[in-house]
């Protein structure tokens, strides 16, 4: 039976996969970024379809809103607009395609042979309240420690980005730069 929900699922799947394929095959780097953006939005749609609205919102905010924009800005900073990427050799394409296809076939074979014990009662959406309570819980099932570790990691990544991308301008002999990894 072909209900609206099923049609929406297949449309989202087709959008995600088609944009993913275009993103890795197009030779315009800016178009690749836009196709990646639509692929990420398709995945967010699949999360909505699975009724995980919180993850879908996080996906849209972080991926579509953050990482895609970051990638587009870095393209503007490092590429001449309109230039095509150099074409790849056919040999490399064929071997990459072969490796990807063999891996895919092997994975799907394993998946279809494996018997999953599906839960009898798939629940609906998860409430934000329950997510927040378990994330900041210090009990055995809580995720307070990983949450804190991730916050330290984000802080370290932020400082690391600033140090790496820092351009030292007034570099004189009596004031040598303290950071070793900036070459400018």
């Amino acid at each position: 039976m072909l209900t609206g929900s099923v049609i929406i699922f297949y449309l989202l799947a087709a959008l995600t996969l088609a944009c993913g394929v275009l993103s890795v095959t197009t030779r315009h780097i800016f178009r690749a970024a836009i196709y990646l953006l639509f692929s990420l939005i398709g995945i967010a749609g699949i999360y909505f379809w699975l009724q995980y609205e919180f993850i879908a919102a996080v996906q849209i905010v972080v991926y579509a809103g953050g990482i895609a924009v970051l990638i587009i800005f870095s393209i503007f900073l490092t590429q001449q607009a309109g230039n095509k990427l150099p074409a790849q050799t056919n040999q490399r394409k064929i071997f990459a395609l072969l490796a990807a296809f063999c891996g895919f076939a092997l994975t799907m074979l394993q998946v279809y042979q494996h018997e999953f014990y599906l839960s009898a009662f798939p629940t609906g959406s998860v409430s934000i309240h329950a997510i927040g309570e378990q994330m900041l819980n210090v009990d055995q099932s809580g995720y307070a420690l990983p949450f804190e570790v991730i916050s330290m990691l984000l802080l370290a990544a932020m400082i690391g980005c600033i140090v790496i991308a820092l351009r030292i301008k007034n570099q004189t002999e009596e004031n040598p730069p303290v950071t070793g990894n900036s070459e400018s």
Partner: protein
Amino acid sequence: MQPGLYHILFISAALFFIGVYGFFTRRNLITMLMSIELILNSVNLNFIAFNKYLWPEKMDGLFFTVFIIAIAAAEAAVAIAIIINLYRSHHSIDVEQAEELKN
């Protein structure tokens, strides 16, 4: 056919190997980073699908997905900082050009 766990696993595996193909063929650092983002997204989709269909009373897959998204954001930011620094010193972000550590 009613979409279920196997359909989502198919999408996820296909997306993963699309990312692998892109990672093998691309020689530009930004496009390689895009392929890695596709791979990470396929992993997230897997976690969510297993959480939904196998253990719907728990939320562990959901938390793993949230943490993977946070780590992916940090990773993308650091990678782009490195790429921009590389572009300043080499005026190119092709991986074939960045071979100073080779000898």
